């Protein structure tokens, strides 16, 4: 079975794998394998596919000894129907025009094309450049008259630079890294294809503009246009030097025509420091620059009412990584789980409100202990603490009885803890268990005997005579079986069983007295309209039985069988009567 199924499964998987992969081929060629320094080399990358996949334009190969002067592209689409089979192919041609800058053997590397996560490569090509110039300069398609050959325009420069907000941070302290594109070229668009991550941090997106928006800046004593590509927040969790994520992609810029160029962002590092020792008690991991303030909703209240202590944390830091400190209940009041309200940008800048509901349990003056919140100030590298002033609540007698409404309110606001379970198991629904269905079946099956009994009673009540007759016939049949068994065993009990069975049947059916002798019985039967032949048979049977009873010599097998046969005949006749 397995042997049969496996090849089938493999075939199906092969098919699915083949269907998932587009049919793509990538080939490259050059117009000349040997060329002079003055010649133009045209490197063509030809991508053929059978369907409309989104194929990104390959970046122009960077070749030592060749200078890219232009690039162009074209697309061909072909359809054909051969033998009722529809075939389609789309060909993308990418032409890269190079000028040699040195003599010797030069290898153009493989061109990489990624389609649906699969990478395809063209073959590498080696050309030989020799000194001199045999060809006419007009081989350059964009400069047929050689007007610009001697004074090529500078290609310009483009690069992506990550700029971390801080060079040194503490573990857990969020740091924003901005990625800028610096360029001197006419960049028209930029495509980010990959984000390479390194060890030691978590990250989230902070800002990503939809369009390139350039500003003029000076960098390395040179004027550049700069555009923000992306801002991300890094959350370092390892105390070491970490490298920020590297962006990979391609830029499309205009020079004669549109050209593509791949890029990788420059490396940038951030030094991550361990948290300094001496963290205060109750420190919950907050790192950043914070300002805190507190507010108590009311200082005078009635028993049964509640006040809210609000702590406002304002600033910049790892809001996503610290929790609200506990404000301990005392015998005089109870405190709810804090309600946290955030108004944050990307989880690092803004305001957090911690609201503790305080419910007094007793009347009188209640002193609220100081609330303490500690954090590591990332500017100074020192632990800071915020402590509220000790405040007094004036609790007046209220209409609610002490301990009732406040504790109810508190209970409603206090989250419950863990279940305390140490092992977990699948909880199959009870209706899937066998015992549920067994009990249900037993309950329903118990109706069957009850219905049977009910039916019996109903029949008896409906036609008592018929029911009695049926019962008599049943008894007679049972007696017949007993008698046959006794006859088979040559048991003298046979005579008694047979005679009693017939007599009882006749007495009950025809309502005859039990003390009648044989002759009187026959007469009574005749009066009740019983067939004379049957009366004769019964009479004869009784005579034979009486004879046999008092003549033991006749206890032979044949004799018993004969009598049993006669008894059976009488029973059949009585049933039909």
């Amino acid at each position, binding site marked *: 079975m397995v042997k049969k199924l496996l090849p089938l499964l493999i075939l199906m998987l092969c098919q699915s794998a083949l269907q998932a*992969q587009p049919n793509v081929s990538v080939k490259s060629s050059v117009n000349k394998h040997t060329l002079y320094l003055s010649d133009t080399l045209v490197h063509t990358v030809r991508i053929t596919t059978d369907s409309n996949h989104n194929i990104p334009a390959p970046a122009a190969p960077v070749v030592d000894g060749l200078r890219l002067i232009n690039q162009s592209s074209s697309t061909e689409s072909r359809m054909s129907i051969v033998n009722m089979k529809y075939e389609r192919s789309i060909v993308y041609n990418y032409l890269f025009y190079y000028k040699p800058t040195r003599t010797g053997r030069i290898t153009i590397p493989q061109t990489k094309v990624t389609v649906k996560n699969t990478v395809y490569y063209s073959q590498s090509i080696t050309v030989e450049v020799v000194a001199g110039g045999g060809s006419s300069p007009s081989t350059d398609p964009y400069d047929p008259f050689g007007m610009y050959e001697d004074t090529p325009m500078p290609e310009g420069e483009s690069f992506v630079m990550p700029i971390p907000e801080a060079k040194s941070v503490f573990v857990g302290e969020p740091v924003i890294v901005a990625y800028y594109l610096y360029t001197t070229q006419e960049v028209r668009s930029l495509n980010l294809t990959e984000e390479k991550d390194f060890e030691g941090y978590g990250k989230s997106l902070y800002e990503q503009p939809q369009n390139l928006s350039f500003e003029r800046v000076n960098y390395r004593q040179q004027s550049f246009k700069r555009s923000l590509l992306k801002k991300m927040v890094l959350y370092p969790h390892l105390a070491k030097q970490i490298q920020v994520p590297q962006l990979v992609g391609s830029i499309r810029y205009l020079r004669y025509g549109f050209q593509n160029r791949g890029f990788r962002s420059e490396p940038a590092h951030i030094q991550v420091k361990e948290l300094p020792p001496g963290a205060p008690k109750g420190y919950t991991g907050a790192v950043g620059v914070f300002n805190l303030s507190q507010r108590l909703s009311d200082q005078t209240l009635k028993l049964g009412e509640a006040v809210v202590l609000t702590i406002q944390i304002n600033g910049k830091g790892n809001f996503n990584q610290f929790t609200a400190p506990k404000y301990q209940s005392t015998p005089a009041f109870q405190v709810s*789980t804090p309600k*946290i309200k955030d108004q*944050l940008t990307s989880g690092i800048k803004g305001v957090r409100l911690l609201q503790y509901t305080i419910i007094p349990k007793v009347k009188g003056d209640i002193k609220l202990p100081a609330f303490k919140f500690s954090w590591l100030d990332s500017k100074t590298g020192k632990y800071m603490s915020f402590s509220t002033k000790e405040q007094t609540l004036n609790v007046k007698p209220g209409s609610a009885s002490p301990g009732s409404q406040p504790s109810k309110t508190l209970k*409603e*606001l206090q989250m419950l803890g863990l279940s305390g379970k140490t092992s*977990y198991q699948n*909880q199959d*629904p009870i209706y899937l268990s066998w015992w549920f269905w067994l009990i249900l079946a037993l309950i329903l099956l118990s109706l069957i005997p009850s219905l049977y009994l009910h039916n019996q009673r109903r029949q008896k009540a409906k036609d008592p005579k018929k029911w009695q007759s049926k019962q008599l016939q049943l008894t007679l049949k049972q007696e017949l079986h007993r008698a046959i068994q006794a006859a088979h065993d040559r048991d003298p009990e046979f005579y008694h069983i047979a005679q009693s069975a017939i007599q009882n049947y006749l007495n009950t059916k025809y309502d005859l007295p039990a003390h009648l002798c044989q002759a009187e019985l026959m007469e009574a039967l005749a009066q009740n309209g019983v067939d004379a032949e049957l009366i004769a048979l019964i009479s004869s049977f009784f005579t034979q039985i009486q004879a046999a009873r008092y003549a033991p010599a006749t206890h032979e097998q044949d004799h018993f069988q004969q009598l049993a046969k006669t008894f059976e005949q009488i029973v059949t006749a009585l049933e039909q009567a």
Partner: protein
Amino acid sequence: MKRTLFALLLVLCMVSLTAQNAISSSIVDSSAVSEDQLLLSKLEKIEQQGIKDADLYYDIGVCHHRLGNIGYATLYYLRALNLNSAHQASQHNLNVLKKLNPEAFEPDNLYLLELLKRIIAWLNYPRLAVLILIFTLFVVICINWLLHLKPDSEKGPPVLLLSLSSLFLLIFGLALPLKMHSVKNDTRAVVVSPQASGFIYEKPDDSSTPIPQASIVKIIDQRSGIYQVRTPSGAIVWMNADDLGKVMP
């Protein structure tokens, strides 16, 4: 031969999977390791083994609740309640979250509707199953009583009891499959991201509105990577799938 076939099968599976898979997320977990986080990772490992236990989901929810991830806490409390609708601790903690973040939850219904919802929640699978057994037994006893009643006896009491028992049996008998169906087709999802937003069209635009964390939304439609949902306020918006956690994964 068999081994070779199996190896081939495995290789093909991998090829097939890599051909279909999208690029996985490169975000690294950066949270500080605390006691609750250690417990959470342990519980999540148990969950990954495929164990479906209401207490397990509840404990995961409590860990998230303590860590301040109220979106995930809500999600796991709801998962626990899907397995055992009478899980009181989950219901209580969900109510706490509701009281502390009212903007993320639907406003309370009318009293009678709330009462009905509570009754339905109390009737979890084991209770429904036991009630079905009890009322089946009552029905059978009443039928027996009626069958064997003397002809001249008063039939009112057994008929009344039989009617009531049958009615309850019908209610509970229908409630069980209906409950199973509603749990299986639960379209609710919870906003797990603190910075989630909903947008009118299928792509983010300037008109995006923030959706509070822990909001329970209903999925109406889904496309690759985005869901069309109905928010607690009744608005129909599109949301990134990454911002949501489905109650019935």
